[in-house]
């Protein structure tokens, strides 16, 4: 099975992605991560206004068989969360890069995004 790794965003080792959206950064998990977790049943996210710290957990994702922390690719304050995931956590399985996004932040260091792994570097890590 081939895994989707779009090259319009950056990745970190723990399989979260980060994508620039007009100065804000949107965060989610990769196709590989959702596939490993299996059927996702619950996503716990911080509230809007909370600060998240780079490389620290910002939430929890729960599948039928496992629970994992979600790690922040970048630090910053949360400007939006994807509330649709509370009712339809399966969106993370179905559209990990689009409808399954998790939160948006106002990054404290916008340049940090470019320091993260590119799609090809991330793909190399998975191989």
């Amino acid at each position, binding site marked *: 099975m081939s895994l989707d790794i779009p090259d319009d965003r950056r990745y970190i080792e723990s399989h979260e992605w980060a994508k620039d959206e007009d100065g804000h950064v949107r965060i989610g998990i990769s196709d590989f991560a959702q596939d490993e977790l299996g059927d996702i049943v619950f996503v*716990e996210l911080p509230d809007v206004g909370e600060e998240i710290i780079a490389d620290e957990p910002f939430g929890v994702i729960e599948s039928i068989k*496992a629970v994992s922390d979600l790690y922040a690719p970048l630090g910053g304050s949360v400007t939006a969360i994807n509330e649709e995931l509370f009712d339809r956590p399966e969106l993370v399985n179905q559209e990990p890069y689009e409808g399954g996004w998790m939160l948006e932040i106002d990054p404290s260091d916008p340049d940090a995004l470019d320091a993260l792994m590119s799609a090809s570097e991330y793909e190399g890590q998975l191989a």
Partner: protein
Amino acid sequence: MSSPDTEDGSPYAPHTEAETEAMLDAIGASDVEELFDIPSAVAFDDTFDIPARSEAEITHEVRSILDRNASVTCLLGRGHYDHFIPAIVDHIADRSEFLTSYTQYQPEASQGYLQALFEYQSLLVELTGLGVANCSLYDAASALGEAATFAARLRHTDGNRVLVPELLHPGRRSTLENYCAGPGIEVATYPSDDGTADVDALEALVDDDTLMIYAESPTIRGTLEPASRALGELADDHDAAFCLGSDPYALSILETPHEVGADIVVGDAGVLGLPTSFGMGLGLFATREEYVRQTPGRLVGVSEDLEGTRAFSLTLVTREQHIRRERATSNICTNQAWVALRAAMHAAWLGPTGLVDAATSYVERPRELAERLDAIDGVSAPVHDRAHFREFTWRVDDDASKVANALLEHGYAVHALDDDTLQVCVTDQPNAAIDGFVHAVEEVIT
């Protein structure tokens, strides 16, 4: 060392010698001892000096030892109660499928038990008014311990101190402190006023470091808490959780914990279904629906099978130790499922009328007894000017322990609390037993 003959071995290992031989042949071993991989340096070649007894012998032995317990009318309470249990509970709960099965990890093979536990959860939801009840913890004390660590995991709570009544049962207090030691939660007490919470004193103690306020209704002295609502508001004002201790009988007549603002209800649900058993319990744990993913213990949920038939299974299992390990909501694995089954059965047998009638009698009969005791010279009852449930404290001019010992010699067991205070509990004892007790008090006191 060789394997003993079957007749000397376990009566529950049914192998014939021929079968053992055939199995060893199939394995390619000549003796069972060959199969063991125990390093010789740690092998045990002594005996335990435990003689085997026949079923008849051990039955006789245990019964004759148990006969050494004093035969008394039990008027003891304080967290463990002697309720009448209908015969149907023993007979049906003892069915082997209920008694001997394992936890329902294979739901297709345990739909019946899962449904019974689902019905137990539903019973507690009805009684507490809260959205979620688990399918058991060990007892009231461990449920209180779990409540404290649970409160610390809730996002809306703040603080690190749990406030408990100064009259809290010592076993509950000790257990709570053990649960709180790991996460470093502080346990502090608040004073009581005439047997229930001293709300003013509590208000002075509550601050932003308060994690949880715990109160009981009925309390360990049998008093019903008149200020539950105020306690709930106090907790709410300080981003603390409000945990109420109660039990299914009391909850069938009391205002629901949900109504008074409780976030958590704990207690001993074993007042239903569980006979007096030297303190065994059934940990009741209920909370608000929004906190379900932080809840300790097993939960049964309903969904469908692949043909669309309603089906039950244990759910939200990722909270539990076998999946989440050191980050689990609790370490609990084995719980009190069979006691929960018995409680559900007992409640089904009583129905709403039976539950309310029984609970009403646990208000009326102690009140009548208190009046009768109060009429005796040298006795004043009840000590507290409160409504009581099941039990109450009473004062004597004499030394309380002396009175309790003398009553024990007359065949009645009551608690002596301090120099001049005793406590007595009325559940389902026949009226004649209560009459006899009053008579014994009259004799002992004069």
